[in-house]
């Protein structure tokens, strides 16, 4: 990391693990769960959030001194909404099928708590470059969880990854299916996303016991 000072690098690496937006800060779960049945949708969602959060953080940080604090929530929402409209139109133009799968969840990036949380907690108090790094770091942390969940749900649920049949053909009984393996259709249903994230939290907190909650 020759380009970045140690402090700047920490802005990116911290949210990837020990300060992850989803598993530790409990932000942005709303849209994280519903779209993770396929790996492809998760990746696209992660990229969209990286785009919106990084740019939004920069814009907020640039105008942070002229936003009247009373109406800042509306200003933040409008900036987020404008960026999300760009993402939505791009998806509709270049990946129409995928934008149908994501349906309203692209729009819901606006109210994704990560966006508001980082605007409020970081971009309003820091310069544009730092805010940009913070945006990248946090949205990447969000994206990693999304991709992990998407990976397991697609692999165990339909035996494919990005639509490629990695476990063999379920109908012609090739690959592992020849040995009596069955797809677990349950993984594709919404509740399993919650349980998968619960398990990720479990693994993460057993590895780093400092994160355990006491109450």
């Amino acid at each position, binding site marked *: 990391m020759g380009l970045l000072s140690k402090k700047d690098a920490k802005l990116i690496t911290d949210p990837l693990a020990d300060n992850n937006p989803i598993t530790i800060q409990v932000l942005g779960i709303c849209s994280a769960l519903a779209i993770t049945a396929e790996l492809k949708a998760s990746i696209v969602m992660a990229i969209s959030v990286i785009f919106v959060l990084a740019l939004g953080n920069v814009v907020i940080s640039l105008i942070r001194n002229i936003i009247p604090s009373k109406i800042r929530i509306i200003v933040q929402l409008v900036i987020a909404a404008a960026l999300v*409209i760009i993402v939505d139109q791009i998806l509709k133009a270049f990946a129409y099928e995928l934008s149908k799968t994501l349906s309203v969840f692209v729009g819901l990036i606006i109210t994704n708590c990560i966006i508001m949380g980082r605007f409020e907690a970081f971009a309003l108090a820091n310069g544009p470059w730092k805010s940009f790094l913070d945006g990248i770091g946090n949205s990447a942390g969000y994206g990693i969880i999304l991709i992990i969940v998407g990976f397991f749900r697609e692999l165990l649920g339909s035996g494919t990854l990005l639509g490629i049949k990695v476990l063999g053909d379920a109908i012609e009984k090739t690959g592992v299916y020849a040995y009596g393996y069955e797809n677990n*259709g349950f993984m594709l249903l919404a509740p399993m996303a919650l349980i998968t994230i619960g398990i990720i939290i479990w693994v993460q907190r057993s590895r780093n016991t400092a994160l355990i909650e006491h109450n």
Partner: protein
Amino acid sequence: MEHIELFFKAIFIDNMVFATFLGMCSYLAVSKKVATAVGLGAAVIFVMAITVPLNWLLDVYLLKDGALAWLGPEYAQYDLSFLSFIMFIATIATMVQLVEIIVEKFSPALYNSLGIFLPLIAVNCAILGGSLFMQSREIQTLGLAFNYGVSSGIGWFLAILAIAAIREKIRYSNVPPPLRGLGITFIITGLMAIGFMSFGGMLTGGDEEEVPTKQTAIVKQVEIKKEAIDIANNEKEITE
């Protein structure tokens, strides 16, 4: 009949939290005590009852393809639906602010119990999600839109009430330390969502020959959950 059907569908089958995972952030953050959960839930019902019909009017008279026809025939070809995110969220944010001011002026008691939750609600995904689902499911009339807002709000209220009650009790249980707090809440919510899936057949069982035509008119099935179930069913058929 349409109203009753939509009411139960929005509360149980398409429950905001368990079927579409909307409003999860505040659902997880404010569900530690039953009393606060009730306050937030009531505020959500209240705001959704106002914003969903309002956004329905916006959608029908301003944003939809050809919605501007009432201005004159030359405006009929405009389609402003790409603006719907920004319009909806602006409506919600201003309505929340307005409601806060009005409630503070006329009912200080209500303000004291709901007030602190109102700003939280502007960024609650359930509110925007309610409006967006209202748009994508093509709800037909203003009355139905109001009904949809109220009943989705009630569904969310029920969910947060249930999880808050469970979390108050689970404090006395011996949960593995790494799962305490957030982890176990996720897993419980997952199990509750599986339970709520059993409501799925509630409105289709028995009178299937008349319901589907009505439902396809009212509800366009563009939902991920349903697609996932379809895929799962297909898989099952294939493997069988």
